[in-house]
Structure formats: C-alpha cells, structure tokens
C-alpha cells in the first residue's frame, strides 16, 4: 500500500516579502516620528528627528513620502518630498525648493531611502534562498525565511538585499543591503516590536555600516498615527505651505 502523499505549497517569496512589508507599514496613510542617533566607535556624534507622512500611490502601490525635519534646531522645518526618484528639498529660510539627486544624503549615514517608507515587494523581485536559524535584534534565535531580493525598479536605494523574515509571524528580522558592485553597504536589525496601528511593528532599526562596523545608526519610531495627506499636497509647490497642525 502506497503511503499517502501530502502536497505542501512552497511559500511564495514575493508573498513573504509583502507580508513583511505589511508588518513594517500600516495599510492606510500614516505619520510617525523617527529619531536617528549616529554613533562612531561607540560615541554618539549626531542626533536628528524627523516627522514622516507616507501614503501609497493608488496606481503603483509605491509610497509617496513627505519628511519634515524637527531637530536639530538648525534644520527645523526643512522638508523632503520623495516620490520614487523625484526628490525635492525645501528650506524655509530661503523659501527654495531644490531638486536633489537620489544619491544626495540629507541625514548622516542614513540614506534617504532609509528614512522613508518603502514597500520592498513593489521594488524588488524576491527569491527564497532557504530556511535559517538566525539571531534577531533581541538576541533570540528565530526560524527565518532567507530571501534574496534583486531590484526590479530603477528608483531604489539598494541594488540587492538579503532579508530574513520570521517564519512564524512574517516579522522582518534582519537585512543586508548591497551596492551594484556587490559590496556590503549596511546591515539592519529590526527590533523592539510593539503594538502600533493594529499590529506589532518594529519601533527600532539598528543600522551597521558595511565597511566600518563602528559606524552605527539607531532609528527609533514613535508617534505612529493614521493620517491622510491630500494628494495635491504631495508636490513641490505645496512644500512652502506644509505645516501640520
């Protein structure tokens, strides 16, 4: 008598990434405050705070992001608008909205792509590399899907990403970001999961530079709130007027 065969569908890599995106990003337009603290060799060298407003584009599903600088005081009320590669920087002192290239860094070690909301499943083609036991940001061992992400859109910050997603709950655990040349640019740990806007979301990302491990940026997320911003405000000409109440 032949043993019964059980058919188990292999997890779809793209769906795993999308589920992980859903853990990081609320399904409706939202705002949050991000505090970035930069360390060099264990010593804090800079700190900044930004308030971000994100909403997914109806057609592409990609996020439109409006980022307002809160601190340090010298940068207060400056704004960054990012829609794909379309990136504008506004300075309230000069009233000037300046187009900047995606390469331009506005905040220390963190790339612009790090401080804005991104749906990786929309920008990358994912491949499942296997299952691995990995240590998470809280030093717990987790069974994880290891995914290899290759950029499928031009307007992305990183060419290739290795992403570990918790097999039990789709939480992102850790990611390694690579340049076009294959060089490791940075490693990120997602940690301190807390209930925010309906589910447990990471409230901290620890970023470690690929070349200089002593260069660390900690990003802390607070003040999560559902908040819609009219579509007409997500453009260059509204930047001088953007003043959330």
């Amino acid at each position, binding site marked *: 008598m032949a043993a019964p065969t059980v058919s188990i569908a292999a997890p779809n890599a793209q769906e795993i990434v999308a589920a992980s995106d859903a853990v990081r990003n609320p399904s409706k337009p939202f705002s949050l405050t991000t505090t970035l603290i930069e360390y060099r060799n*264990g010593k804090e060298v800079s700190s900044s705070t930004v308030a971000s407003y994100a909403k997914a584009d109806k057609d592409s599903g990609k996020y439109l992001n409006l980022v307002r600088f809160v601190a340090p005081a010298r940068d207060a009320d400056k704004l960054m608008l990012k829609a794909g*590669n379309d990136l504008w920087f506004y300075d*309230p002192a000069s009233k000037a909205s300046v187009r900047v290239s995606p390469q331009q860094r506005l905040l220390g070690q963190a790339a612009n792509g790090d401080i804005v909301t991104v749906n990786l499943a929309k920008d990358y083609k994912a491949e499942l590399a296997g299952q691995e036991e990995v*240590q998470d*940001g809280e030093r717990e061992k987790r069974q994880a899907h290891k995914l290899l992400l290759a950029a499928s859109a031009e307007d992305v910050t990183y060419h290739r990403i290795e992403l570990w997603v918790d097999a039990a709950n789709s939480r992102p655990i850790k990611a390694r970001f690579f340049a076009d040349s294959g060089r490791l640019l940075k490693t990120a740990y997602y940690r301190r999961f807390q209930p925010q806007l309906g589910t447990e979301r990471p409230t901290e990302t620890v970023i470690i530079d690929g070349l200089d*491990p002593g260069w660390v940026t900690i990003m802390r997320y607070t003040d999560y709130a559902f908040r819609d911003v009219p579509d007409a405000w997500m453009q260059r000409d509204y930047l001088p007027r953007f003043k959330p109440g």
Partner: protein
Amino acid sequence: MSARDLSCALALLLGIAAGPATASDEDALTLADLPAAPPEQASDWRIALEGAGGRASQRIGQPRVDGHRLSLDVAYDSNFAPGWRAVFASRLDWRWQTQDPRESKVNTLKEAYLSHQLNPTAIVDAGRINVRNGVGTGFNPTDFFRDGAVRSLISPNPSSLRNNRLGSVMLRAQTLWIDGSLTGIYSPELKDTRNDAPFNADLGATNHEHRLLLSLSQRLTPAINPQFLLYKTESLPLQAGANLTMLLGNATVAYVEWAGGRSASLRAQALGGMDDTAYVQRASTGLTYTGPAKTSLTVEYQHNGAGLSKHDWNALQAGPSDRYIRYRLLAQSRQDPPTKAAWFLYGSWQDAWISQLDLSAFVRHNMADRSRMVWVEARYHRGRYDFAFQWQHNLGRAGSEYGALPQKSSWQLIVSRFF
C-alpha cells in the same frame, strides 16, 4: 561601570553573543540597548543668535578694517486656528568696525503675513511674503521679487542672499491639483523711496511699483515638472519665465532657468540716455553632480542679456567714475551680473574628514573681464552650536567686476547658537 559595559557583560554571561550575529553586530545592538531619550518636539519658533568677528584687507593704499557683528534671527510660524496660519520672520544685524560708520544696526523684516486655507486645494495669503522662484544656484532670472530685497549683506554666498532679504507686501492666491498648481500675486506700490533707518520696514525697497505675477506648474511626466511664469510691472512690458529640472542618472540634476521680454538695458536704466528697449533674455543653466562621500559640485553658466558686452563694459570703466558707480549699484540691487556672461562653480563636502564638519566653496568668474570671486567656508556643527570660518578673495584688475570691490580679501569667524 557604564551602562554599555554592563550590557556587554550581561550579554557575555548569558552567552547570547554567540550565533550568526557578528561581534560588531553585537556591539551595535548593545548601543541600541542604552536608554532612549524622549523624541524632540516640533516648535513654532526658530531662533538663532550669531556672533562674528573678522578682518578685511583693502585695496592698495587703504587701511585694513576689523569688524564684529551680532545678529539675531527670529522666525515664528503657527497654525493659530483651523485653516489659519501666521508667519513672521525678522533679522537684526548689529555691526562695529574700525572705519566709518563705526557702528550700525539694520533690521530686515523678512516676512509678516497671514494665510488662510479655504479648502485643501485653495489658499490665500496677505502681508509681506518672501516669494522666491528659480532653480538656478548662483543667478535666478525668474526670482522677480529679488529686486532691492537685500537690506543687509551678510555674505556673498547665494544661500545667504536668499535667506536674509526682505519679502514684498502682496496678496497671493494659490490653487493646487494633484500634479500642478496655479499662483497669482498682486504686489502694490506703497512707497517711492527706500528708508535706511535701522528698524524701518523699508517698504520702498520692495513695493515701489505695482506688480503682478502668475505662475503655473504642471507635472508632465514623473521626471519632468516645469514651471511657467508671467510677470508685469508698471515700468516693464510683460516678462515670461520658465524653470525646468531633469534627473540625469542617479547622481546628476540638470537645470535651466530662463526669463525673457522687452526691456531697456541695465545701462539705460542706470544712466538714462537713448531708449534701447529690445527683447532681452536672461538665463541660468547648469548641472549638480553628487559624488561619493557626500560631495557635490555645481557648474552653472549665467547669461544676462540686459548686461554690458565686453566692449561696452571696458568703455564704462574708462569713463566717469560716477556713471560706473551708478551702474554697479543698480546691478547689485537687482542681483544681476553686470556683464552678459559669467560662470559659477559651487562645491560642498558634508562630513569632510570628520563627522559634522562641512566644507563649501564657490567661484564666480566674469567672462568679460576675467575677474573672480573665491569664497570658502568650513562649518562645524556641535549640538545647538555652529562654528564657521569664512574666507573671501576678490581677484581682477582695477575696474573689473571683482577687482573694483573695496575689499581685496577678508575672513571672519562665526559662532551661531540655535534655540
């Protein structure tokens, strides 16, 4: 034992440093375990206090000048009621120097206006507003409200000229749609003449004639978002303008800014004489390249069709000095190059060598007389303080654009405190 040491020791005791995470990852996570300060909150106020001291070497035969400056910059921006916003910005510069005038105070009332949002896509504003158009870096032909706006010159750096200037009193209405906007501005004549009294609002500097401006922006593709402008004053026929930026790859932004219309030349406006009204164009076009390690470089070509040709510029220098001075003062007030063509080069390097140290420099090069202005700044940020060193050098023969400036070279040390 510090909190960090304690965390490391605990991690070792519990054996949790082992595993796929590397030792450097463990160090980073230990840093993240440190207690977090509460996040900073946004404020309606932006206040900066700045002290500066420096020295200027004059042209041959003139004594050097030592000077000090104390500046207070205050900005307030508040949604004081649903749909209502109040904006105020002012700057006081108090100077002392070793030549006359030994002491001077200049207050620049940059902005004071009320804004009302009629609905999410329609807004009206009234009061003194600093409207700035233009995508150029060193010259902005479509920045139509720049005329007479600089009341106190802090630095020749273009960003300082944009930051520290008077707005114009106006009524402004704007409507927006999903990928564009239309803005209409009426700025009335309020005073005929400037007033240099320290705390005067100096309405004559900015509102000495009736002016109208219409600007339309429309995104054509995700990458192309041009702006078109129409500008009319009592003294000028209709002027048109356009701004366009384009992304070339991931690291380069190209831009072109253009304005054109019938007008008299700068010389005729400054010196009178025969009416030479003709179709005149001004333009500023360039590239900004973002390099590795947070460096960026801008190269810009500037054209002023109302400026003097090389031949006429030489002739003006050879003529009576009062005519030369009148011409230079008008060009300076308009923020126009005095001659037809110039190059502008601007470079910056963030976190140069050490974190929080920014270097920036620019060169202005007049193509008619080959004179140059070189400006360099090193700025270090530390907490709420900035420490800066600025150096400026003007090169060129006597009478040239930069060779005629009284200061040959100067430097200043600046300390700023942000509140």
